[in-house]
């Protein structure tokens, strides 16, 4: 994720996509979409572990915590499907 972030920043600074055409050309290469997908996959597991730890510490009520954890899990799955569809249709 750290490497992807640095490459993303470098590409933005070098290619400076300012128009819609530029932006598509920036996002469309198959390897970039693949990298983005793997970045998001890593992001999903990273966010899950992080938010889970935070909820464990700050939501003492087990029932409420379980509901929140399930909501977080659901959200992360929805985001993953969402980005997958966006990248496939790009």
């Amino acid at each position, binding site marked *: 994720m*750290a490497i992807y*972030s640095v490459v993303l920043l470098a590409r933005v*600074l070098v290619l400076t996509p300012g*128009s*819609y055409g530029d*932006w*598509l050309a920036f*996002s469309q290469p198959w390897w970039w979409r693949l990298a983005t997908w793997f970045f998001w996959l890593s*992001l999903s597991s990273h*966010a899950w572990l*992080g*938010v889970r730890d*935070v909820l464990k*510490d*700050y939501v003492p009520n087990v029932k409420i915590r379980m509901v929140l954890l399930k909501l*977080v899990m659901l*959200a992360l799955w929805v*985001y993953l499907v*969402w*980005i997958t569809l*966006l990248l496939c249709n*790009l």
Partner: protein
Amino acid sequence: MMNSDRKAQSTNPKKVRPKNLNLFTIRMPINALVSILHRVTGCALFLALPLLLVTFQLSISSASKFQLVQDLMHSPLAKLILLGLAWSFFHHFFAGIRHLAMDVHWATTLIKARYTSKMVFVLGGLATLLLAISWVF
């Protein structure tokens, strides 16, 4: 009271183990500040994910929507949010690398840890500043 506490502790240590997670009553040395901000920024970034996805979807859907995103991003409120998220990202990034370094037992003495904490703040602030400047030009 003391006796019963001690007794409870010997039978069930979990029940009476003191725990204090109230952030407003804990003294915050710089290392603790980096650590808690790593959490706070992580939460902020997590909450920003749907915003990021919506923005990305709009930006790739058509030329007019792309223009809309560009216009929205130039509003003062959006700039403020972007600046906050940019700092959140950079702080989380550098503090995360610091944690990874410590996982492999690098810079784990107190003096070194304080030094790397300061580095996290300096680098996070600097990266945000540079991004803001490049945004303006």
